[in-house]
């Protein structure tokens, strides 16, 4: 898949993974697994970028004697998800155009 497209899609996927409740890194990977394969090294820059653009916040919480980072979606992140839903309609139209019947 086109790198830029994939990155954008994965970003909104990660946001969707923490849409209903806070999640930690490995949990996000597991939640996304049935839908999209993402490795730790791919997830890391995505999380950093989402944080720097204000779409999620990070907090550290204690778990089994170590500190775990939990990610929480922000209103800006929710808006990104909404925008994605709107963009999907446009994408469908483009797909229809690209896959239209060949003219004889």
């Amino acid at each position: 898949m086109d790198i830029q497209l994939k990155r954008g899609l994965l970003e909104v996927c990660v946001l969707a993974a923490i849409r209903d409740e806070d999640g930690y890194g490995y949990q996000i990977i597991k939640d996304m697994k049935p839908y999209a394969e993402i490795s730790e090294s791919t997830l890391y820059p995505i999380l950093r970028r989402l944080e720097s653009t204000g779409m999620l916040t990070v907090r550290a919480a204690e778990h089994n004697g170590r500190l775990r980072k939990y990610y929480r979606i922000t209103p800006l992140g929710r808006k990104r998800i909404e925008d994605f839903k709107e963009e999907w309609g446009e994408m469908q139209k483009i797909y229809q155009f690209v896959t239209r019947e060949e003219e004889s």
Partner: protein
Amino acid sequence: MKNSNSERAQNEQSHEERMRTDGSRTAAGMRKYEFFMELYGRLEGLSEEDRKRSADYYAEMIDDRMEEGLSEEEAVAAVGSPEEIARGILSEVPPSAREERKPRKRWSPMAVVLLILGAPLWIPLLAAAACILLAVLIVIVAAAVSFFAADLALAAGGAAGLLGGVLMLGTGHGVSGVFLIGGGLVCGGLAVLLFLGLVYVPRGILWLCKITARWIGSLFRKKEETV
């Protein structure tokens, strides 16, 4: 608990195998300590903060996998090789974050030339600004001094009124006496109020200045972060 004797023997064996087959290291069989040593080393050039953040992230990933039942080596292998990870992280970092420290102190020759050429303009302007600041300072001090003088006068008047009023009461001039005492009390009260104002108002102004400066500072800091 995790490493029984048989597991430990296996670990040592895989370590030897790793060293035996090729001189270089492979990800399989690497343990946490080695992983982080290599990752940290490969992230040289990044800020301390970024390096620690990356290390924390992968430490969490490895620990989470170990919690699910993987062994340390398997967990380390699952997150990828330090080389690939470092390459990915370094490629993501914008060049500004890396070389931030060096160019900041050096002045570009263009800037120096402009500075010198513009000197006839900005030196007088700077001097004028300094004079204005000095004048403002003098005005403030003068105002403070006059306020204090007025305060002192009020206090003196109040004391005189009280004293005189009491004397008048004593010598039989009741009405005038009471009047003087009343006037003296009013002066005294005003003096106290003025004094309190002189003490607390400057403090309040300084506090307002501090808050405003901090707020302005935070605006600049936010701009730096969103780049």
